């Protein structure tokens, strides 16, 4: 395959963004802002794109902070993962997905949290968010516990997730949010 073929696959009318690699803070903020501005320029509402920005930054931060596959750059350890944004079903939806390797032992904790979030309607989600914020269990955990709820609040549909086996101690965690 030549590079042009690869480019057409990774960036097209339907595939807005594809990335796989090391996620740093500067990368995640500036990339999320560029995607937002690119889609605004193509006519998307700025309110919807603010939600997209919120979702991509939370996803990238999850990869950066929690991916089990890591690299050390300038004495900082950064997560490695994947993020894809696609248009689907007559361009009605944007599907934002992120994936990264996790330790199998963390699967239950993530599953429990996401199942709880998925079971809630919008009003209960808002209540749950405020309750979790008050509890402060994540004060020293970069606030990631709130991140999933934040994504769900910004989405029009239920968030989806899957775990795939990688090896005896690792799984691949994939998260999908639609707006």
């Amino acid at each position: 395959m030549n590079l042009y073929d690869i480019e057409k696959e990774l960036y097209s009318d339907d595939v807005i963004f594809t990335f796989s690699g090391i996620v740093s803070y500067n990368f995640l903020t500036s990339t999320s802002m560029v995607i937002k501005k690119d889609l605004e320029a193509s006519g998307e509402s700025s309110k919807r794109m603010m939600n997209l920005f919120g979702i991509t930054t939370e996803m990238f931060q999850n990869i950066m902070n929690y991916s089990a596959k890591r690299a050390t750059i300038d004495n900082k350890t950064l997560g490695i993962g994947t993020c894809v944004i696609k248009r689907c079903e007559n361009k009605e939806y944007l599907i934002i997905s992120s994936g990264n390797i996790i330790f199998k032992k963390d699967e239950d904790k993530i599953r429990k949290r996401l199942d709880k979030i998925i079971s809630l309607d919008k009003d209960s989600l808002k209540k749950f968010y405020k309750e979790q914020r008050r509890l402060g269990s994540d004060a020293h955990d970069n606030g990631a516990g709130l991140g999933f709820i934040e994504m769900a609040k910004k989405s029009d549909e239920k968030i989806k997730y899957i775990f795939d086996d990688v090896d005896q101690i690792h799984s691949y965690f994939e998260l999908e949010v639609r707006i």
Partner: protein
Amino acid sequence: MNNIDIKQTEFTPSVLFDTNSGVVEIKGNSLPENTFEFYAELMDSLKNYFENPKDATLIKMEINYFNSSSSKLFFDLFDLLDECKDKSSISVQWHYDVENESMEEAGEDFKDDFEDLDFQLVKK
């Protein structure tokens, strides 16, 4: 006591704390690399300030966007103010753009959470 004067960047807010007038201003986007580190100086200074505060304290916030860890941090900030409300007459002003519904909603949520604080929503 030391004043704070942190300049605004694209993804972090300006943070001003004038301890002589008892005014804190936070303005911009709040998406720091490490939220708790970024606001540590302000939180520490406020804790010191409330040992011997001015009669009135004003917290003026004008945020366009904040991430989930900033949401937790702001909650902790308001919680600290709530604990100190008998030591100084504290007002919080949450400024938001009329078109920014999510910041309006965020302000309302904080106001609900801190019923005993003088928490004002100010439309721009």
